[in-house]
């Protein structure tokens, strides 16, 4: 399958750094900030963002502020595919009530994953505000959902596939488009 | 009545011959017979045997006509090559009086496909408490000689002794359904490895064997003959073998299903495999086959037991016990005795015709194919292979469906009347 790398290791690094600063800027600081990664790679990206924030704002405790939100049971397409495995959900000890929750995912596409994530969030508390950070926005939204913080806008056609690789998961870090 | 000429039939001995029939009698057996006959049957390649006699059939009439009637059961029997069947007594009303057995015989004659010989109950109402009027039944028009409470065991040892003694007066025989009731309360299938996995209450082999052991000793003690129905275990075979070696006058039967099927089939929980006595293990099947070959077992008897759909299309525990058998008995006999290479067509004739006729004391059945004998014959194509699908029975509880079995009945001649021609059942009986 012909593929081309659209983001390199360095590109991704810089994008994550910029997103981290944008998050802190829009929140006027790190107070009440919670990052919830959507499995699998959203979790790793959330971790990376948190590490950057902590580097620049030592008051921010990355370990206590990052969680993972499994959205499998809130999906709207369960009856269209074979049964999916459910993975762990971890919510930071401080809870979500009144928190500034930033959902983090690797690719924003139809928007359905985020819709499911918003439903999943409901079960855990009432954030004061929910924002969305994604590494790649590839367009083709099927629902009125938009990201607040975007690493890179990558217009694609529907028959292309975007592959996000992260070292923690896949051995190397890059974003590849396959046609 | 009509005349029939059968050309080029192969007898059990292997010789090829012609047979002529006039009315109810065989008039000549020999080569090159050229008679003008109303019907000529080209029996080239077909094996001619005396018409089969079933010592154990359930015709369900009177009382359970939803499953089978004497007419439909007779038709199924004829299709299987039978010219006589013994109708078991567990009807409603029970065949325990001269009146009922005469009625059953009359209905059989009216149907006209086979000799329906009623079996008399041993005890009134099959209740196991009081002897039925065995003498009256023996003296009736039905001339009952075989008595059985089949479905239930004559478990009271004193009652069994009395019955064995009493029938000596008219050369009768008690056919015992060997099942110690206390050891088999709530039993659903063979007690063994499979029942332990399936959680179905087991029917242990010892419940059959202990009754047989008792009965052969009783028969010896009172000097009577005894017949054991549907032998199903290797242990039972050993007991019969021992008894015969001692000179005890015992005969034994085996069903087609016990010669072919095992309790592994119960894993499907499909109640078509639920039967009493139950399907056993492969070891039991092999022992029964060996016993049929070596003479320890005298006959094949079908225990044809039709049941309506609602009694089988349900959970195992709620289902009735029993399987069809009339139309595959000959094929199973061929499988066990011929295809195995272990015996021959003479043995087939013995186990399906001559021996059962002798046990039932039927003078016009199971005879040698010779001039002067009653014309009860079956012609089988031994090369045919049938995939078992439908049957002529009113019921459908057929465990052989989908199996391929050897041999096919091409013609059945009942007292000189062709009940089956070219594999097709005659539309009417002989009357």
């Amino acid at each position, binding site marked *: 399958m012909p593929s081309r790398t659209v983001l390199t290791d360095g590109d991704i690094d810089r994008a994550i750094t910029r997103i981290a600063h944008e998050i802190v800027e829009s929140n006027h600081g790190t107070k009440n900030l919670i990052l919830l990664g959507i499995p699998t790679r959203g979790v790793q990206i959330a971790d990376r963002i948190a590490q950057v924030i902590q580097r620049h704002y030592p008051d921010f405790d990355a370990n206590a502020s990052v969680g993972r939100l499994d959205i499998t049971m809130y999906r709207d397409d369960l009856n269209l595919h074979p049964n999916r495995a459910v*993975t762990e959900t971890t919510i930071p000890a401080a809870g979500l009530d009144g928190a500034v929750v930033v959902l983090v995912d690797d690719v924003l596409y139809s928007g359905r994953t985020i819709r499911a994530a918003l439903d999943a969030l409901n079960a855990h508390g009432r954030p004061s505000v929910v924002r969305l950070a994604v590494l790649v926005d590839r367009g083709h939204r099927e629902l009125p959902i938009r990201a607040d913080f975007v690493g890179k806008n990558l217009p694609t056609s529907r028959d292309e596939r975007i592959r996000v690789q992260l070292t923690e998961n896949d051995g190397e870090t890059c974003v590849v488009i396959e046609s | 009545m009509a005349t029939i000429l059968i050309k080029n039939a192969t007898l059990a001995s292997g010789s090829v011959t012609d047979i002529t029939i006039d009315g109810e009698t065989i008039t000549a057996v020999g080569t090159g017979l050229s008679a003008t006959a109303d019907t000529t049957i080209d029996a080239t390649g077909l094996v001619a045997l005396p018409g089969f006699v079933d010592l154990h059939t359930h015709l369900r009439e009177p009382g359970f006509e939803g499953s089978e009637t004497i007419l439909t059961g007779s038709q199924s029997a004829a299709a299987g090559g039978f010219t006589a069947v013994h109708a078991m007594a567990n009807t409603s009303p029970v065949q325990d009086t001269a009146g009922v057995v005469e009625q059953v015989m009359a209905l059989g004659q009216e149907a006209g496909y086979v000799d329906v010989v009623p079996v008399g109950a041993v005890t009134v109402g099959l209740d196991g408490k009081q002897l039925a009027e065995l003498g009256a039944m023996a003296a009736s028009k039905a001339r009952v000689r075989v008595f059985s409470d089949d479905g239930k065991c004559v478990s009271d040892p004193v009652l069994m002794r009395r019955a064995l003694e009493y029938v000596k007066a008219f050369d009768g025989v008690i056919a015992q359904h060997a099942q110690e009731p206390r050891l088999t309360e709530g039993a659903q299938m063979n007690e063994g*490895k499979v029942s*332990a996995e399936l959680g*179905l209450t087991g029917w242990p082999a010892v419940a059959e064997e202990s009754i047989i052991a008792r009965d052969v000793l009783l028969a010896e003690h009172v000097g009577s003959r005894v017949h054991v129905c549907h032998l199903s275990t290797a242990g039972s075979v050993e007991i019969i073998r021992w008894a015969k070696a001692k000179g005890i006058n015992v005969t034994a039967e085996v069903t087609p299903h016990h010669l072919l099927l095992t309790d592994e089939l119960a894993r499907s929980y499909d109640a078509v495999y639920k039967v009493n006595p139950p399907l056993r293990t492969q070891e039991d099947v092999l022992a029964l086959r060996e016993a049929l070959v070596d003479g320890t077992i005298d006959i094949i008897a079908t225990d044809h037991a039709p049941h309506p759909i*609602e009694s089988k299309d349900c*959970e195992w525990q*709620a289902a009735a016990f029993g399987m069809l058998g009339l139309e595959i008995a000959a094929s199973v006999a061929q499988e066990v005795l011929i295809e195995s290479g272990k015996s021959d067509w003479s043995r087939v004739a013995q186990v399906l015709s001559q021996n059962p006729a002798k046990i039932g004391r039927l003078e016009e059945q199971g005879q040698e194919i010779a001039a002067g004998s009653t014309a009860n014959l079956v012609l089988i194509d031994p090369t045919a292979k049938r995939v078992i699908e439908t049957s002529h029975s009113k019921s459908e509880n057929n465990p052989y469906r989908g199996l391929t079995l050897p041999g096919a009945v091409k013609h059945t001649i009942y007292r000189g009347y062709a009940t089956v021609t070219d594999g097709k059942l005659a539309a009417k009986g002989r009357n």
Partner: protein
Amino acid sequence: MSQLKHLLSANDLSREAAIGILDTAEEMAGVNARAIKKLPTLQGKTVVNLFFEDSTRTRISFELAEKRLSADVINFAAKGSSVSKGESLKDTAQTLEAMGADAVVIRHGASGAAQKLAQSGWIEGAIINAGDGTHEHPTQALLDAFTIRRRTFGVGNSAGRGLDGLNVVIVGDVLHSRVARSNAILLNTLGAQVHFVAPPTLVPANAANIQAQIHYDFDAALAEVQPDAVMMLRIQSERMNASYFPSEREYSRVWGMDSTRLAALKPGALLMHPGPMNRGLEITAVAADSPNSTVLEQVSNGVSVRMAVLYTLLATERI
């Protein structure tokens, strides 16, 4: 891994599938610990609890599981059966199908009833065996395995694990116990070693196909095996009347779990019981209420495990 269509027997579960269900149950347990115990996952699905045998506890457990997944629940207490000439299993099933059941949870007095339902073609939906006669009770085995796993490895540390190398002793009427049968199968699938302790009359005469070591002496078995879990089965007094054992007194003395036997267990060993318990017969009150006892958590784990089973069977494309 091929999609599971029904859960009729513990044999339906490969090791991978069983661990998958246990792992999913961990997440479901998380839901059950929240303030709002609800997931939208089975919204719009209709699940029928078809109970031919009285069993309030199991039925409530399934009902809770179904409701927490937002399914619509119908409780069908079938009076009578083919045996007592009530409505036949076939007619009942076809009626439910006509009403549009996506899944049927069936508890029936006849062994093989669940399999009959699944193979008959009367119902299109998923069939879950909630106990068929003396044959199997697969969700009980799953919740038992889940309980053992959680206690052994800890909450949050169990995911992906089997029960390899653990020794489990099951005590009681094995012959008539669907719990024993399903557990023997599932525990072996998960890598545990199973032992039965019972009077000789209450063990199948031919247990060649059952993967368990059989012991008649409870104390000797405990000393020899040093089990990680002991599972007591409920004994029914009807068995005494059928001469399986002479008296309740003798049974509890020889095969009952009492303080002495409890003390003989290694530290941390689990004492389990599927419930309901006959306090004083197969288990003393002291033992039942000891820290080793997992009876209550088995109940709450039952809801989580049944949620996992329902999720696995129903949140999927229908084949």
